[in-house]
Each structure stands twice: as C-alpha cells, then as structure tokens.
C-alpha cells in the first residue's frame, strides 16, 4: 500500500456561526490523483486551504506525512508548507517580478538555493511547462493559460510532495483551458500526488483515480471516476451531474 501523505480526521471549519466544513475525514496516498467536485459554495476551496493551513481548522486533525499540522506554531507551519504546492484559480503570480524571479524566489529564500542553481532549475521547469522563452517576461504580459502554467512551475520549484489545485482552469478563456490541463496531465503521469478541485469533468474522468464529491459542508461520496460518472451513489451527486453534463 502506498505511503499516506495527507490524513484528515474529523475536520470542521466554521466562520462565525456558519459551518463550512463538517466533520470531514479522508486521506491522500502517495500517487493519488484526487478530483474534488461539487456545486459552488460546497466548501471545496475552504477544504483545500485547510489542507495547507491557509485556513485554521476549527476542529479536527490535518496531518502531513504523519505530522499533525494543527498542533504546530506559525513558524513550523511555514516550514511544512514547502512540501505542499498550491495552485490558485487566479494564478496569484507576483506582478512585480519576472517569471524567472517568481519561480526562484522561494527556493532561494526558503530552501537557501544559490541563485545560479535556482535559475537553472527554474529554466528546466519552464521548459517542462512549455514556456522557456518567457523567463524574462512579466506576468502582466502573459495570457491566462501561460500564467497558470508559470504558477504550476513555481509550485513545482519547491519540489513538493503533493500539489493542490483550486479550479486551475476556471478563470481561463475556453481556448486556454487545454494547455493547462495538458501540463497537469503530464504531471499526473510523472507520479505527482495531486488534489484537484475542478469543474472539468473530462479531466476528472480521465486522469484521476478518485472523485470526492462535496456538498453541504461534507464529502458526500468518494468513488472511482468510473463508478461516479456511470453510477453515482448519492442523489445529490446525480442531480449535480445531470445539471452539469446535460446542456
């Protein structure tokens, strides 16, 4: 059995009186490609952010490779985060730096890599996402698809054990979705552990090995893609699929 990377036990998250996540337990094993799907407002983003403690869980345990993150101090968490790459819907590239600087900043400052080393590594990653010619460009001069690919390269530069994606394609124009999904597919093939919140059912179906269906503050269903798309267990999942697929 593959190594356990993330383990979530009885995770609860509240904002004031609103319970956004309620008593969620789940685990991510080495090499897993998990697609998290569900309607808007189900708590998918919040769930993902809890995994890397960008949001502090109200209750429950989130462990990364056996270490309980909720018990850690702010400083220790900063250290743990190196192991978790995160890609956001809105890219969140640093507009005040070139693409290269965006990618090398964290390796240099956090891992203490030399600039030369970091640059070399960044260029190879840019090559990997098909943007070796954009190293000196500024984010504002890139298309959405290009930005998201840089964001992926930036996260990969920290050599994380697991990559989290929060709707990486939903801010993109339709014709740019493909290039980003291609990079993610490649990454999956290379054996990276991934948790992907997405509305791209095609991607979810063809790449992931598990679908987690979230609704109403919880994971309502965990299935293989085959099961989920052909025969969803819950009525809610059925309804969701009917809405999203039949156009």
């Amino acid at each position: 059995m593959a190594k356990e990377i993330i383990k979530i036990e009885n995770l609860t998250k509240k904002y004031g009186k609103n319970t956004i996540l309620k008593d969620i337990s789940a685990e991510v094993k080495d090499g897993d490609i998990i697609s998290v799907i569900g309607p808007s407002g189900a708590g998918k983003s919040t769930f993902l952010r809890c995994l890397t403690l960008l949001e502090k869980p109200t209750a429950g345990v989130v462990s990364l490779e056996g270490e309980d993150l909720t018990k850690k101090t702010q400083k220790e968490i900063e250290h743990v985060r190196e192991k978790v790459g995160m890609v956001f819907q809105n890219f969140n590239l640093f507009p005040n730096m070139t693409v290269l600087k965006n990618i090398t900043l964290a390796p240099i400052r956090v891992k203490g890599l030399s600039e030369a080393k970091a640059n070399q590594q960044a260029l190879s990653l840019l090559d990997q996402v098909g943007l070796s010619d954009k190293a000196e460009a500024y984010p504002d001069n890139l298309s959405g698809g290009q930005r998201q690919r840089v964001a992926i390269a930036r996260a990969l530069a920290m050599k994380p054990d697991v990559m989290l994606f929060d709707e990486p394609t939903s801010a993109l124009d339709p014709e740019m979705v493909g290039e980003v999904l291609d990079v993610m597919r490649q990454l999956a093939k290379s054996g990276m552990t991934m948790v992907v919140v997405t509305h791209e059912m095609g991607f979810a179906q063809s790449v992931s090995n598990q679908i987690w269906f979230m609704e109403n503050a919880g994971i309502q269903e965990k299935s293989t893609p085959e099961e989920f798309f052909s025969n969803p267990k819950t009525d809610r999942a059925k309804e969701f699929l009917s809405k999203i697929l039949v156009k």
Partner: protein
Amino acid sequence: MKKIYKFIMLALLAITVFATSGFTTSIKADQKDVTYDRIMKRGYIVLGTSPDYAPYEFQTTSNNKSKDVGMDISVAKDIADDLGVKLKIKNMDFDSLLVALQTGKVDMVLSGMNPSAARRKSVDFSDVYYKGGQSILINKKDAGIYKNKDSFKHKKIAAQTGSIQYNLAKKQIDGAKVSGIQKGADLILALQTNKVEGVVMEKPTAEAYAANNSGIKVIQGGFTLNDDETSTAVAMPKNSPVLRKKINTTISKIKAKNLLPQYLKEAGTYLKGNTVNTSMIHYWKYFAMGVGYTILISILGVIFGFITGTLLALLRLSDNKVLRGLSAAYVEFVRGTPLMVQLMFVYFGLGLFVNLPALTAGIIAVSLNSGAYVAEVIRGGINSVDDGQREAAESLGLNKRDRMRFVIMPQALKNIWPALGNEFISLIKESSIVSIIGVTDLIYQLKIVQSDTYRGVAPIVVAMILYFVMTFSLSRLLKFYERKFNNG
C-alpha cells in the same frame, strides 16, 4: 495708568502757556550764527532724527540698503535745498537728539518734535510746520453723511485697541459703538468692507492711508485736544537766528505751496518698504518668499510625515497588541482633530519644555499630522495588495518578513505613490495654517502685503492664484508620472 492722560493735558497746557510767554522774547539777542556759518562753510547740513515714527520719519529697505524717509525728511531736504547745501542724516535715539544739537553733532532736528517749553530752554525752534491731531477716516461715498466726530453718534467706529484714539472715541462720541482692532491695515479693511463707518487715527497716518486708497477720505476729528502736543517744529542749536530765519522761510514756502500732503503721501508709499506703488507685482519678493516657505514646509512635512507614517504603519502591523493599539489611537486622534489645534498644542504645549521657533513647531505639527494620514495610506496600500498574493507567498513557505519585503511592500508602494502625491498637494494647502503662529508662509506674506499696501483683496487673490498654481502643477506632474509609470 489711564487716569494720568487727562491730567497730563492740563499740566501741559499750564506749562506751555508759561513757557511761550516767558522765553520766546529772549532769543533775538545775538545775530552772529555759528551754526549757520559752519553749515555754509562745510557745504552740508546735518539732520538729526530718530527714524522710528512713521509717517514722520522711518526707515525703508530697498535692495538691502536702508534709507530714511518720511515727511520730516522731505522737509529737511527742502531746507537743505533752499540753503544750497547737501543734506546729511544722522540717526540716533530720540533722547540724544537735543544733546547732539547742543554739542554741535547735528545742525537741526526734525523728528516729530513738539516745541515744548522745557525744550525751548535748551534749543531754538522754528515756526510750527505741521499740526497733527486726531482725524477720522471714512469711505468717500459717505462724505455727505459724516463731517466730524459728532456725526458718529450711535454709529460704528473703530480704532486701534487700547490706543489714545480708542479712548477718545469712547469718551468723546456719545453712544458710538467703538470696535478695537489691532492692526492699522485691518482697520482700513474694516472700513472698506463697511464693517465700521469710520476709523479714528492720528492725522498724518490717516492721511498716508487716504493718499494710498482711492476709496477713503480723511475728515477732521473735531476732538477736544490740547493744541500744543500736536504741533511739530524744527529744532536747532540755541542762538541760531540766521538759520532759524532761513528755515522759517522754507517752512512758509512749504505751507504756501501746500507741500505736506504730498510728502505724507510719499511717506505712505514708503511705509514698510513700499517704494513706489501698491501693485502686486511690486511685491513679488514677498510672495516668492511665502511660496518658498510654503513649499519648504510641505516638502519637509511630506518627508517627515512619510517616516512617521511608515513607523506607525509598521507598529500597526506588529504582533504586539499594545503597540498596535497605540498606533491606531494616534492615527484616529490626529485624523479626528483639526491641524489648527494640533499646531497650537505643539507650539505652546511642547513650548513648555523646549523653546521651539515657530517654523520648527510648524514643521513638527504638519509632519505629525501628515504622519497619521500617511500611515493610513500605507496601510491602505498594503490592504490593496490582493490577498491572493499573501496566500501564494505563504503557501510557498516564505516567512512573514520575506512576504512583506519581496511581495507585499513593492506592490503596496507602487499603489500608494498617487495617494502620497495627493498628501503632498493637501499639505501645500494645509500648511497655510502655520501662519497663525507667525511662520512666514504664503498666507503670512499675504497679510504683510495687505498691511503694507493698505489693499485688502488683491493680495488674497494673488495668494489664491499662487496656491492654485502650486497645487495644480503638482497634480499635473503627478498625473504625468503616474501615467508614465503605468504604461512603462
């Protein structure tokens, strides 16, 4: 003490009567005149005067050289001209003038001097060349209504606070509403703006004002005054019969030609350095200096304000609750009170501990005030950076310092340049308040020019335009760079 005044009048009257009857006869004795001979031999006459009594005699500076001017100086020039000699002026204390005459240091004295009995004992006097007294200034349009003090019964009239004129108006005009105003120029302004119907003033000063303001007019005060204390004559060494005669001839000529009003008018234009005209262009140096100070205070205010503001913003972001609270309280309090009180607080409050010059106090107050606003600008700049940036930096494992240094701050600073520019612009305007503690900024200079030219509105308009030019060009400049910044 106020009660002395009336009493003195009586005493003086008595003495003068006695003096004029007792001594004036004894002068014609000796026709030999050493003073006159000395003057003619040397080719110049030395005038002794104490130039601190406008418009009789006072100093004016042009091109950094001071010069004696005034009605008495003009009369002295005429005397020298008629004698066919040059005029040399020696300035000294009023008290030393008679001694200087007696010891031959000066040949004559014109210094607004009354030919009093006591003085006649030690020096000779010419005929009286000017009779002063108390006049009333009115608006020309009202010339039909007001004739003298008696026309002002139950009317509004003004005089300098605490002056003899103020008391005269109170005592000698029945039922008049007398307003005390501190400065001469403000009195004129009050008259011109119809806030009062008349202004009581010493005659020569009143005439100087009237000569330089077409809209106003001098009328006889008609106050009951002791005659003697209002007359002025030329003093010369005892036993100067020839000189005295010559001088009296000149005085008769001056009286015949009625030259004194013109001399007074000239004196008026000189008052406080005004050389020829009251046009605003003539005062460009004053305005330029004001603009200089205004800009200086604004620039220093912006710089120190930025430093203060940055510190406050950093405190506000610190983990220490107390520091955070202090910073927030400071910002709230400063932004919630007028700069005017803050300025007074710094000037007078801090002044209890250290002696702060007004300029320093002004800059400190403006900086501390600006600091609070800049702190909010910086905080706003940091908040304006999309939270996603922080999250991205955080999820890359960057610590707090690095996040600030590499990600948040550079973007925040870029965002706040325009706001800082606006802060600079508003400082230019707000710095105007420092004039109330006497910093010689643009507003202060505007007031000086007002009192110098006896013109109320023109200096205001000039200052207004200057402020506008400053703020407008700065805002255009900022917009230009901002656009360049955003495109580049």
